[in-house]
């Protein structure tokens, strides 16, 4: 993977991107359900060069008590990057970016989790980014859904995520780090496949109305591909080789 090069070709004349992919191709994705010994549920994902670990605890007692809700359980999400996960060493203290992403991921998962059945409890999702390379929030959200299922938290649907974007005036799927830095738009999308609902959506960049629709379309299709890998991860762990 080269460094940031202002003259890097993001899309060549054959429609091939800077890392050799076609415009509608995701990076290599590997998802594993489980793996942590103490967490109630966990998952690990590699999305391109992103390496992200998620641990879930709950439903469990809420401390301090005044934060609990008498009618429903609450969801808490912490997205955190390790100091060694990015190019220039990051201070361990939570940054504003991490706090915002924590909130966005929480709100992307809330439509899926069914916590009305667990009043006065909390479900804690801890996301740790070990290595970052563009699209961490989508990879994190994808792994978080798997970890929640692994923990046995009742969910209406899984949430799968990937970013659509634009480079060289072309709509692409799964924006990597170089494309995020030097490209024209980046649109992370989180999607529930069975309920057909988008629960995470952000945009950085400029899109015409047609490009906007195309990005959402390309993104949702990409999410369906990611969803199949979430399913495979859970089946591999729980159903051995006998999955339907």
């Amino acid at each position, binding site marked *: 993977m080269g460094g940031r090069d202002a003259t890097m070709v993001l899309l060549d004349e054959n429609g091939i991107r800077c890392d050799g992919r076609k415009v509608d191709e995701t990076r290599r994705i590997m998802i594993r359900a489980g793996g942590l010994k103490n967490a109630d549920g966990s998952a690990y994902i590699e999305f391109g060069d992103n390496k992200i670990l998620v641990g879930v605890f709950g439903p469990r007692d809420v401390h301090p008590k005044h934060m609990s809700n008498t009618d429903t359980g609450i969801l808490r999400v912490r997205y955190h990057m390790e100091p060694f996960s990015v190019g220039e060493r990051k201070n361990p203290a939570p940054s504003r970016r991490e706090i915002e992403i924590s909130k966005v991921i929480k709100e992307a998962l809330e439509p899926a989790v069914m916590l009305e059945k667990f009043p006065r409890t909390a479900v804690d999702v801890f996301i740790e980014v070990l*290595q970052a390379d563009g699209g961490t929030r989508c990879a994190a959200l994808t792994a978080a859904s798997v970890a929640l299922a692994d923990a046995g938290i009742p969910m209406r649907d899984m949430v799968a995520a990937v970013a659509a974007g634009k480079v060289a005036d072309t709509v692409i799927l799964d924006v990597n780090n170089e494309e995020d830095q030097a490209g024209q738009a980046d649109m992370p999308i989180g999607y529930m496949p069975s309920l057909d609902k988008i629960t995470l959506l952000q945009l950085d960049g400029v899109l015409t109305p047609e490009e906007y629709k195309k990005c959402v379309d390309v993104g949702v299709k990409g999410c369906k591909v990611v969803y199949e890998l979430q399913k495979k991860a859970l089946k591999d762990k729980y159903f051995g080789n006998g999955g339907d």
Partner: protein
Amino acid sequence: MASVSVLDQLRKAQIIELLEQGKRVDGRALDESREIKIETNAIPKANGSARVYLGETEVICGVKIQPDRPFPDTGDRGLFICTAELLPLSHPTVETGPPQPHVIELARVVDRGIRESHMIDVSQLVIEKDKSVIGVFADNVVVDYDGNLFDACSYAATAALLTSTTPKWNWVDDKPALVEGEETPLPIATIPVSVTMGKIGSHIIVDPNGDEWASMDARITITSDSDGNICALQKGGSDGFTQDEINQCGEISVRVGAKIREKLKEAQKGSQ
């Protein structure tokens, strides 16, 4: 952390009963550490990294090497900073928020163990005296907890540093300029190994696991270098050691440390 996590009394009684017979719950000898698995280059984009499994305790250390300003009184030496963080996903009792005293102690003990051994020759990490030096940051994160984070973090940091490569910077136009394609290993002078021992009643055990950690009355972490000299030490816990016990622990740490040093050397060789 052990104070918040409640160990069941039957388990604790079992641990003590077996110790009276010179045995441990997982069949280890009193001076035997658990199996240590070291995977180097766990985080390829960092300058160096290692993932260490000590029994079911799991720690990842990532090393970042980048130009930095020297400390005011040591303009002819590079920086070495080692940290440790207990991730909330490692155990249900870990809270988020500012680090608690026992985590700060963990980080400082691991840092001192490596620093005081002079493992890294920081005099070779200067870009421009008094203006710019190379900063080496070894950050440990605990991913799963089953006792003895002191040793797990120490081994992860040491293995990561042994397999790290540093780029080269020249001083150009009053700032550090990266020289492409000139990566070299860090200047390593010795390999420090920490050995943590717990005291339960009058028994000294090496590398307490999670249940043993919760049953301990006191603990001691001793770091020795490649020459068999002791370079750092920390006693913790609310009971005391006799002088004899302290001497015994010193001897054990050098002996057991030598065996573990071979594992670290293997890991270093394996990644070349």
